[in-house]
C-alpha cells in the first residue's frame, strides 16, 4: 500500500465528482481572466506587483512550492521522487521566477534559462531575441538545438519534463492529486500521436514564416522597419497571433490547467506541447527505457492507473516487454507504486531494439 495514495478513488474531488467539476470551472475562469482581461492587473497592483503576469508568476511558483511539499509528504519515501521534486521546485523558484525578476530590477528584459524553443516559441522570433545580449542569443540556439536533443538522448525526456520544466513542475506538484485521471485507452494514445505532432508542425511553420517575414523586412532611408511583401506580412502576423491564442493561451493555459481535475495534470504535456514532441522523438532513439522484470507482474494496475501520461504500463509489464514510449516523462511513479518491484527506469543503450521496443503486444505466450 502506498500511504499517499490511499482513498484516491473514494474522493469526490479526485474522481470527476461534482467538486472536481467546480474546481475545473474555477481554474477555467481564472485562466480566462488572466489571458483575456485586465482585471488581474488590479489584483496585482493591490499586492504591490507591477502587472498581472508578475502576479501569475508568483501564484504559479507558490503552487509549485506548496504542491511540492504536499507531494513530498506523500512520496518522499522514494529517493528518486524526492530528488526529482526538489529539482522541480528549485528550477521554478530560481530559474523561472527569481532570475528574471532580478534581471528586471537591473532594467534588463527578463530571461528564463529553464525554458526552450519551441515551448517558448518567441525565443526564435528574431524581433524578440535580438533585443537580448549576444551571449543569451547563443544560449537560446545552443540550448534548443544541441543541448536539449543531446541531454534527451542520454537521459530521456525526463531530465526536462519531470525535473526542470515549469509546466511539468505544476503537473507533478499541484497536479499530483489528479495524476490518475489521464485516459489510458488506446484511443487516447492514437489521438495523442496525432495532436502532439500536429502542434509541432504548427510551431515549426509559425517559427519559419516569422523568420522569413523578418528577413523580408529592411530599414528604409527614413529609418522605418518596412517590407515590400505587405500581404505576406499580414498573413504571418495572423499566423503568429493564432499560434499565440490557440497554443499558448488556450492549450497550455486554459485547457492545460483547467482540465487538471477532469483529465489529469498532463493534458498540455501529453497532447499538445511541441517541445515534448521533439523530446519524445529523441527519447525513442536514446538510452532511457523502462525495464520490465520478467514474469513478476501481478497485473494489479497501479502503474497504469498512476501514469499521468496515460501509458498503459501494465500492458507491457504483464507481457514482459521492456519499453520506450515517446510520451513517458520518466516521473517514475509506475516503478514507485509497483508492489512487486517489476519496473525500473534506466539509462542504458540498447541497440537490439527487439520487437518489445517497437510495438505493444496484447498478450505474451
Amino acid at each position, binding site marked *: *500500500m502506498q500511504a499517499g495514495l490511499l*482513498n484516491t478513488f473514494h474522493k469526490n474531488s479526485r474522481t470527476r465528482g461534482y467538486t472536481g467539476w467546480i474546481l475545473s470551472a474555477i481554474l477555467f475562469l481564472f485562466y480566462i481572466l488572466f489571458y483575456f482581461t485586465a482585471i488581474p492587473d488590479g489584483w496585482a497592483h493591490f499586492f504591490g506587483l507591477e502587472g498581472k503576469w508578475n502576479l501569475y508568476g508568483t501564484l504559479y511558483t507558490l503552487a509549485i512550492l506548496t504542491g511540492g511539499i504536499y507531494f513530498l509528504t506523500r512520496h518522499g519515501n522514494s529517493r528518486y521522487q524526492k530528488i526529482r521534486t526538489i529539482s522541480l521546485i528549485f528550477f521554478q523558484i530560481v530559474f523561472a521566477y527569481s532570475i528574471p525578476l532580478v534581471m528586471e530590477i537591473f532594467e534588463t528584459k527578463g530571461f528564463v534559462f529553464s525554458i526552450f524553443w519551441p515551448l517558448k516559441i518567441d525565443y526564435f522570433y528574431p524581433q524578440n531575441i535580438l533585443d537580448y545580449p549576444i551571449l543569451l542569443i547563443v544560449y537560446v540556439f545552443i540550448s534548443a538545438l544541441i543541448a536539449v536533443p543531446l541531454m534527451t538522448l542520454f537521459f530521456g525526456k525526463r531530465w526536462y519534463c519531470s525535473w526542470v520544466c515549469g509546466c511539468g513542475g505544476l503537473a507533478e506538484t499541484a497536479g499530483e492529486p489528479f495524476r490518475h485521471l489521464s485516459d489510458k485507452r488506446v484511443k487516447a494514445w492514437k489521438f495523442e500521436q496525432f495532436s502532439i505532432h500536429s502542434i509541432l508542425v504548427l510551431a515549426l511553420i509559425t517559427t519559419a514564416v516569422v523568420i522569413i517575414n523578418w528577413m523580408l523586412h529592411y530599414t528604409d532611408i527614413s529609418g522605418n522597419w518596412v517590407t515590400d511583401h505587405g500581404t505576406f506580412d499580414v498573413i504571418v502576423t495572423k499566423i503568429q497571433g493564432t499560434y499565440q491564442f490557440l497554443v499558448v493561451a488556450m492549450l497550455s493555459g486554459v485547457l492545460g490547467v483547467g482540465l487538471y481535475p477532469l483529465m489529469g495534470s498532463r493534458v498540455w504535456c501529453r497532447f499538445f506541447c511541441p517541445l515534448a514532441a521533439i523530446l519524445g522523438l529523441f527519447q525513442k532513439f536514446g538510452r532511457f527505457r523502462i525495464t520490465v522484470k520478467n514474469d513478476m507482474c501481478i497485473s*494489479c*494496475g497501479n502503474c497504469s492507473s498512476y501514469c499521468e501520461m496515460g501509458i498503459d504500463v501494465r500492458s507491457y509489464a504483464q507481457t514482459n516487454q521492456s519499453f520506450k514510449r515517446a510520451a513517458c516523462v520518466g516521473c517514475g511513479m509506475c516503478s514507485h507504486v509497483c*508492489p*512487486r518491484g517489476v519496473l525500473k527506469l534506466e539509462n542504458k543503450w540498447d541497440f537490439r531494439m527487439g520487437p518489445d521496443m517497437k510495438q505493444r503486444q496484447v*498478450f505474451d505466450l
Partner: protein
Amino acid sequence: MHYVIIGNGVAGINAAHTLKNRDNNAEITIVSYESDNHFSRTALMYVFCGQLSDRCIEPYERDHYEKMGFKRIRDKVIRLDSSGKILYMESGQNISYDRLLIASGSLSVMHDWPGINYDGVGNFVTWQDLEWLREKAKSAKKAVVVGGGLIGIETVEILLHAGLEVSFLIREDYYWPIALNKKEGDLITEHLTDYGVEIRLKTEFGEVLGENGKVVGIKTGEGEKIDCDLVVFCIGVRPQTDWLKESGLELDERGGIIVNEHLETNLPDIWAAGDCTSVVWFNGVRRPEQLWYTGRDQGKIAGWNIYGDKKNYKRGTFYNSAKFFDIEYTTVGLVNFNFEGEQEILLREKDKFKTVRLVYLPDKTVIGCNMLGRRWNHEILISWIEARKKLDWVVDHLKEALFDEEFMPQFKIITEA
C-alpha cells in the same frame, strides 16, 4: 471446435489468449460466476483502500472479449457430464463442449468452528468477499484477522488503513514460517506493531461469539476473549472442485484435479489449470500450486495443449514475491525445505528491515535466497542457483541482482545477523 473454459481468472484468460493465438477461428466460451471481466485478484486489496478503482484492476479494455471473439457466460457450473460433454449451470441452462478447460480456482478454507455463521464473519479472496468487506468496514470498529499468511497480512493492512483496530491471530510462533525464518518473521511483526497492529502469536482460534446473530467477539483456543465486530478468516485456500465430486474426475486428497504433465485430466477432452489443479512438485509430491504466477503459466500451457500441441508444464526454479505493508519481499529457489545438512546466513543492512538470507548445502552451493526490504531481479538469482554458484561468490555478486529504484541508498551489508 467449441472450447469451453470454466473460470475467468488468470489461468482461464491466459489459456483463452494462447488458444486464440494458436487457432484464430476457435470458438471460445468463458464461464464465470464471479465477474464479467477478468480482474487481478491480487489487487483486490488496493480496491478496498481506494488506491485503485474497480475498473483499474481489469488488465484489458472493456471491449477485449468482443475483440478477441470470446463468448462469456455469467453462471455457475454445478455439474459436469463428461460422457455427454455437457455442463449444467445453476440457472438451469446447459452447454455442450468439444474440449473443456477447468480453471475454477480456489475457495477460502473455513473450519467448522462454532459461530462461523454469525453476521460479520468472512474471507477476503473473491470479488464478492471484497463487496462484503467494504460494506462491513463502514460500521465495524474492531476486527480480528485469523491466519498468518499472505492474505492475512494484506487483510490486516487494509482494515488498519480503513481505520479499524486490528488483532492478528497467528497460530505459529512467528509470522509465516512456511517462507520466513524466525528472525525475518519477527522483523515483519515488529513492522506491523509499529503500525499499531495487535499481534497474537502462538494463538489458536477457538470460537466466534455472537449476539442476535452478529459477531461480538471471539474466543481463542486458550479461552481468552477478544471483543470485535468483524472476523476475517485467512487460513488458506482449497481447490474449488466440490462440484466435480461425482464427475469421475480424479481428485487428490486436497481436492485438486489430478493432471499429467500436459495438464490433461483422467477424462477425455478435459484439461485443468490454475489453483484447482494438482501437479507434481519438484520433490515428487503432488499438490496444487496456488500462486498467481503458476496460475498464469499453467493457463498458457493448457492453452497450447487444449488446442492439440503437446507442451509440458514444468515449473522452473521457484520464485515468488510479496509485500508486507512497506517491506518488499522476493524469494527464489528452495528456502525452508530443510534439506539434510543445509545451512543459512542472514545478512543485514544498516536499515534492519533490509535483509538477505542465503540457504546453502554443505558444499556451499546456494539453493535459495529470501530477500526483504529491497527489489531484486529474481531472474539473475535464479540463474545463479541453476549454475550452482557457491556462497562466497553469491555474496560478492549480490549487488548485480539489485533492481531498486534509482538513487536508492547503496547496498551494504553491515552484519551477519
